[in-house]
């Protein structure tokens, strides 16, 4: 008999008893366990932490009180206005806020999930033999509640600022909050079946509705048409919206909850990775990096494109590629087109003096997505080093297409500066055109400055503060771009000639585009210092040699 035939017992091996089936922990037990661990490791409780940061808490309370006070004052002032413009704004702007909130909630939900999980949860929990639906349910509820609160605050704010009464403010806060919550629940229900087309479509539809509502305000102010809405109709419409949103919220939440278990782990983790990347960038106050992460994510989602042949040689090839890339991802063009409404709406709402600043800020935000090429070429030197041109010429080529679009934007917004709404500032056509050009230049150059911003240098000398040491760039980075907007449009705000603004824009362009940026200046300074040190060394050596000869 061979050893194999003899059986395992001949080698002293005993069949182990059948293991008792283990009962997996429930998601609730696991969460409690993690909470216990976390609480056990905490060195301070919430009250102690707040007492340590009492200055920040006190500042937040003070600023919050001031903001609420300003809003209430504005509400009282605007409530007294009974012109057609004010009435139309009161009737339509909450609708615009409602549509914009739904659009943003859908877009953000689609980008992040909305249901997501961190990498650690993905590795340790999602593979465990526990119900994934139960584990993720709190995430879904959290996202819906956050959307409700965000939407409600925005709805209340817009409604109050248009001079609506308390009841109307509360109704619109509820309607906007519930609509945002139902949008997130709807996106979650779509996420469960891996479909995003409807979410995508709805995002665009509500975006267009928001812009359309803004156009309506402008149209009423210009006297093109009127709605003839009664004063109390806002409350009735708001209540109808609450009922509709609640219905969508309930159905979508039930569907989303039923489908939670079907969401793939990779989809949950990619949303979590995006959040952790963006939150990391925000902790370093590097908004540019946060945007880079989102842009990269969108490109990865697209994955593959139909390659297009380039055109021209030299810088022409670079400009042509910028144009092609814009057509490949044309969404920023829609945003740019939508911002044309801003100066008209501002003028129509009686904010004629502030119109250039508001319009420049809107254009600033709209142009940033058009400067992705400039961003890639300036964030590291690698790609620019591959191109046989000076950095100044590369920058000019990168902004050629956005500059043309800003020019078109200036032409399209010129009528807004002619004196559009009631009590608006009237300007002759040439001055209105120059004002529009100066505003467009401010927006474009602000976006260029924002795009070229380098991350904060944490190796630089720190500034001491009560909250601890921080690098000076941490604060200045936050205002990048906004500073150019404000400084360039300041003469318009003060009622000076637009030529002043154009002059300031010229100086800003020279600094931002001719490579006279801080980094190059520092490099030149270092080079000059090095040359000076060398000359000094040579002079000392020559003097020493002369002394030696004399001896």
């Amino acid at each position, binding site marked *: 008999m061979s050893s194999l035939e003899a059986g395992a017992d001949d080698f002293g091996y005993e069949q182990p008893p059948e293991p008792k089936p283990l009962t997996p922990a429930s998601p609730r037990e696991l969460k409690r366990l993690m909470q216990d661990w976390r609480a056990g490791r905490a060195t301070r409780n919430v009250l102690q932490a707040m007492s340590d940061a009492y200055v920040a808490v006190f500042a937040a309370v003070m600023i919050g009180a001031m903001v609420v006070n300003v809003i209430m004052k504005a509400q009282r002032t605007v409530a007294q206005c009974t012109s057609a413009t004010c009435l139309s704004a009161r009737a339509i702007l909450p609708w615009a806020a409602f549509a914009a909130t739904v659009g943003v909630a859908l877009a953000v939900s689609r980008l992040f999930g909305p249901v997501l999980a961190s990498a650690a949860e993905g590795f340790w929990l999602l593979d465990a033999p526990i119900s994934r639906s139960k584990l993720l349910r709190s995430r879904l509820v959290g996202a819906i509640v956050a959307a409700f609160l965000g939407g409600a605050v925005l709805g209340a704010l817009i409604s109050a600022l248009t001079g609506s009464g308390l009841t109307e403010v509360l109704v619109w806060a509820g309607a906007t909050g519930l609509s945002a919550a139902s949008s997130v629940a709807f996106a979650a229900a779509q996420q469960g079946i891996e479909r995003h087309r409807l979410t995508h479509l709805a995002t665009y539809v509500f975006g267009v509705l928001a812009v359309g509502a803004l156009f309506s305000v402008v149209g009423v102010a210009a006297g093109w048409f009127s709605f003839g809405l009664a004063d109390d109709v806002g409350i009735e419409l708001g209540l109808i919206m609450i009922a509709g949103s609640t219905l969508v919220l309930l159905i979508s939440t039930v569907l989303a909850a039923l489908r939670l278990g079907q969401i793939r782990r990779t989809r949950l983790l990619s949303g979590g990775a995006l959040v952790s990347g963006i939150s990391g960038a925000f902790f370093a106050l590097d908004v540019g990096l946060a945007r880079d992460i989102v842009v990269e994510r969108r*490109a990865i989602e697209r994955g*593959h494109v139909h*390659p297009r042949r*380039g055109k021209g*040689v030299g810088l022409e090839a670079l400009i042509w*590629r910028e144009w092609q890339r814009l057509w490949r*991802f044309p969404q920023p063009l829609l945003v740019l087109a939508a911002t044309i409404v801003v100066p008209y709406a501002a003028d129509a709402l009686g904010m004629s003096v502030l119109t250039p600043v508001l319009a420049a800020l809107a254009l600033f935000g709209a142009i940033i997505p058009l400067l992705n090429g400039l961003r*890639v070429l300036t964030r590291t030197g690698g790609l620019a080093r*591959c191109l046989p041109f000076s950095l100044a010429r590369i920058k000019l080529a990168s902004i050629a297409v956005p500059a043309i679009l800003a020019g078109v934007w200036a032409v399209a917004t010129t009528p807004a500066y002619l004196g559009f709404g009631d009590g608006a500032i009237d300007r002759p056509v040439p001055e209105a055109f120059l004002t529009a050009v100066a505003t467009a230049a401010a927006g474009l150059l602000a976006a260029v400055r924002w795009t070229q911003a380098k991350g904060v240098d944490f190796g630089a000398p720190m500034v001491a503060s009560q909250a601890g040491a921080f690098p000076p760039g941490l604060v200045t980075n936050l205002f990048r771009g906004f500073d150019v907007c404000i400084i360039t449009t300041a003469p318009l705000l003060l009622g000076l000639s637009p030529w002043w603004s154009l002059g300031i824009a010229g100086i800003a362009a020279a600094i931002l585009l001719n490579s006279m940026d801080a980094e190059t200046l520092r490099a030149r300074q270092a080079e000059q210092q090095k040359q000076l040190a060398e000359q000094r060394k040579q002079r000392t050596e020559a003097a020493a040699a002369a002394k030696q000869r004399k001896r």
Partner: protein
Amino acid sequence: MAKRSTILKVSGLRRAFGPNTIFDKFNLEVRTGEAIALTGRNGAGKSTLLRCLVGADRADDGSVEVCGNAMNEASPEIRRDVATVIDDLDFFPDLSVVEHLDLLARAHGIADPDEAVDEVLEEVQLVPQSGQLPGTLSSGQRRRLALATAFVRPRKLLILDEPEQRLDTEGVAWLAQRLKSERQKGLAIVFASHEPELVETVATRVIQLGAARG
């Protein structure tokens, strides 16, 4: 026999981070058809030296000249003559693989960019990925694309930092032969590497940086 011209001249280069001197009084002259391999353990200063050579980092002392011009990263002449693949190469997230190469070929004024791009694309074995956006490429494929950006354009000096990184065995063998052929055609090459096969096949001179491990 024609005298080979000097492409890169480094004199008395010094770089220190605080009290740590990475290299000091470093001199190097590279002529056409020469390939210099920089070797040494991690942290020996290979990448720092290469960054100083391409102008991505500023040396504390000394000078770097390329074809007789003082190194200035922003100079179009330097950018025209020097092709680099170091760790800071970035890609446009919304341009495909083939479009990146097409852009570089056209920017450098290559007469027939389509042919040049197709040739390089085939060589780096990225033809199936030609329409992919860089974010979807594997790390090895990204490395191949980075190398392709250096090969698709005219150059007099090629500077590479560990070009074998993330390449498979077949890829390293291809790279060694490609660099050898480039050198034989008169290109000057400076590269840092940990890959003995690559160093042996390509280098005409090997410079060991930093002290050997005790």
